Structure formats: structure tokens, C-alpha cells
């Protein structure tokens, strides 16, 4: 079985980054590793900083619902949260998400 999934980030400046993300890795980690601008991860994935904010543009299956804490943290994002906003430290690469497209909201 393939050990990675393909994920695309649409950046605020119009560019995009597509990368192979190893299964089990968080999409915050993956974005930081591929220098996706605007995904920072100051707290290291502890659900404490809201700097890994992304908007789900297109997902092959619906993502699991955000936890209550993630919902609260989405109030503290730099760009205003949208209905399909997520904190990407909380999204793990699983085979079903192959082809996921995320947008990084601009300032």
C-alpha cells in the first residue's frame, strides 16, 4: 500500500504547493516541512496557537468533526475563520484523504 497521500495547499499569494505526506503525519507538520507560507505551528501541534489555520477546499471524504477545543481555538486565528476552517495540526494524513486540497487564508 502507498505510504503517503498527495495534499495540495493553495497559498494566499496565488501559488500552490503539492506534496506527498507520510501516513500518520499531521498536515501542520507537512506544511512546515514544505515551507508552505502562512502555516506556522508556533505551539508545535498542542492546539494552543491557531497559527496552522487552513480552509478545506476539497476533501475526498468529509473530515472528522473538529473537537470542542479546536472550535474554541478557531476564534483566535489571524485571518477570520470560515465555515470549513480547520487547524491543520489536528488533521492526520490517512489514506482516505488522498488528493485533499487546502487553502491558506490570506491576511
Amino acid at each position, binding site marked *: 500500500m502507498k505510504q503517503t497521500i498527495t495534499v495540495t495547499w493553495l497559498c494566499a499569494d496565488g501559488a500552490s504547493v503539492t506534496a506527498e505526506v507520510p501516513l500518520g503525519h499531521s498536515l501542520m507538520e507537512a506544511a512546515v516541512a514544505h515551507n508552505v507560507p502562512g502555516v506556522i*505551528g*508556533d*505551539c*508545535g*501541534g*498542542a492546539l*494552543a*496557537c*491557531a*497559527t496552522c489555520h487552513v480552509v478545506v477546499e476539497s476533501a475526498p471524504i468529509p473530515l472528522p468533526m473538529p473537537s470542542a477545543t479546536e472550535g*474554541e*481555538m478557531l*476564534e*483566535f486565528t*489571524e485571518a477570520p475563520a470560515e465555515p470549513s476552517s480547520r487547524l491543520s495540526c489536528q488533521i492526520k494524513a490517512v489514506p482516505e484523504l488522498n488528493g485533499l486540497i487546502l487553502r491558506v487564508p490570506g491576511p
Partner: protein
Amino acid sequence: MAEATTQGDGRAMQAGSSSIPVLNLDPYAPETIDNPYGFDEALREAGPVVWLSRYQCYATGRFDEAQTAFSDDSRFLCTAGVGLTDIRKPESLRDKNPLMEVEPAVHRRVRGNMMKILSPTLMRSYRARFEEKADAIVAQMVKKGRFDGLHDLVEPFILDVFPETVGIRINPETVLLFGDLNFNANGPMNQFYKEALERVSPHLPDFERSFRKENMQPGGMGARLYEEEEAGVFEPGTAFGFVRVLFRGGFDTTIAGISGALLALSRDPAAWAYMKDNPDKVLNAFDEALRHVSPFRVSHRVTVPEGCEFAGARLEGDRKIAIFMEAANRDPRKWPQADRYDPSRAAVTEHLAFGHGAHKCIGLLVARYEAEALLRAVIRQVDQLTFAGESEPAYRRINTLRSLVDLPLEAH
């Protein structure tokens, strides 16, 4: 060095705990405090969970088990205190911390309300000030060339920015004494604890006054906590405890963590070169320092009254379990080349130095932004950072905090 046996003392043989290895070592003996890694290895290798016979509690030093013990509140609770002694018993002189040492449901509510005050938006607003101050103090050090990275750099920096961040006024002359007492009190009531108590007692009333309402700075976190208490968001009388736990939890730990990162960078040319090439990865240098030498050595939980299954064993109810983050953060099952400081390692943020689960450090973003500002200034302004000590670096003798005695450095 390991003295693990499976028969052990009477206590350990009770209630189906015979499968749990007994460890007769003392994690708080002076020589272990000076160099704990032999103990940590013995703890890890004795088993996933052991009985620490000297202190009549369970203990774990493995990564997976430590993570579970921190986060599974169906088995492990904070209600007996996160120190070694049971705060429900009169002989424990510690008072209950109204954020941590409460029922899970109370904790969730209180923490949720505190997070609204300690919000990332507020934390981000401090960054520019941290950076400005860090740049200035590091420039002074570079001018000096040779300096004490702890007493001349990290301590004055944190003393400058942290009380202001919490929004309190403290006495800079005595504040450095208190870490001894706080972090000794989380361990056994041994000589270290008694000596710290004696040293610190005369200054305690003054220190405690810093957390009172009249000493809150307008607009600071502390003032907001008192306002919310008045508005009925928090129970009457709890704001004092919140302000106190924020300050006590965030002062000595951050000093220890940042000075630890400077020590590691000054002794490892490969790590220093990596940071010079990757200055935007400065938080990795901090995370790796916290993993490699965890300031907060050990925390505790208590088993639920009915007892529980854990790591293939049956634990008795209402018993403390010591969670050695220091050992878990060097568990070779999780970390390749665990004894090596390597800011470029994979999963560098997954250490347990900030805890794990519902109680994971609420102030970690403050600590991270402070560390980022200071370490970034050092990496930017200094070409070569070298350890200038004549002997191995020494750590203070404090039961549960690993913090340097001093840190002679040279910067070019």
C-alpha cells in the same frame, strides 16, 4: 545500578501487584539529582510501570506509558496533587492549585475560561516587545564577549518580560529564591525541601503579596483573571491561585529551558551550524533542549479509587504514579540516539516536557515566544558561541527541576 526485583517489599505484593517490578532506587538522592540519567534508564528498563518502594508509589519512565498516564483521566487524576505528597492529607503542606488539582469537569471549565484570557491573539501581541528586549540584551552580551548565559542573560531577560506578561509586580531581589521551594515541594520532604523552606520562609509573605489583586497591572492577564472572578466566571477566591500558578509554573521552567538550549548550542558545533543555516527553526532548538534535558523532571497523578489496568498490570486504587518526563523524553523506544541533542531530529515537538493531554502546559506559547525571541537574537548576532566552563556544567539540587548553576559562555 538497577536493583529491580519482582518480589520486593510487603506493600508491593498486595492486591495483585506482584507482576510489577520493584525499584529500590531514590530519584531524589543527591547523586541522582546531580546526574539522573542512570536512574532514568534503570526505571525505563525495569518495566513499563514499576513500584518505587522508597516512596510507596508507582512510576513510569517510558514514553508511551507516560503519555497515557498524563492524558487518560478515566484511570489517572490530578485530584491528589501533581506532586509526590497527597495534598488531601494534612501532612502535605501544599495548598491545592485551583486549576490543576481539581476534578476533570471543573478543570475543563476553568481552563476553557482561562484560555480566553491567555489567548493566542494576546500572546502574539507580546512578541514584538520580547524581540526588541532580546535584541538589546544580546547585543550587550556580544559586546562583553564573555558572560554568564544564565545570570547575565536569561534570568534578567525573563525577569524583565515575564512578570509584565502576567501583569504583576514582583520583587526582583528575592524572586529567584522561590523556584527552589516550589520545585522541591513537588518532591519528597527531604533535606533539599527543608533547606529551601528555611531559606525562603522569611520572604514568602512578600512573594505571596505579588499575586494579590492590588498588585495587578491594569490590562494584564492577572487583572483580567480578577475581573472574571468578580463577574462570576470563576469561583470566588480562585483568581489569586490562578495568578500564582501562572507565575510559578512559568518562571523557573522557562529560565531552565532557555539556558539549557544555550548550553546545548554552545557545546555542539554541529547543532550550532544547523541553527546558523536554519534560523527560522529556532523553536526546534528550544523543543530539542526541553526533550534532551527536561526542566520539569517529574509530575504525578493518582489512580482512580477502583484501581485500573495499566501497561499489562493491575494498579491499586488511590495510589500516586510518578511520571518521569525526563526519562520518557530519552526513551530509545521513541527517540533514536536519545542522548544526543539534535535540533534537526524528526518529531522534535512530540516530547513530554510540557506534559500531555488536558493539562498540557497552558503557558507554553508564552515560553515559546520568549525562547524564540532570545535564541533568535543569539543566533542572528553571534557567529560563534562556545561553552567557557572549566568543568562539566552543574545543575542545582532541586527535587523536581533541572536547572543550571551557571553558564559561562563566549560569543564572537
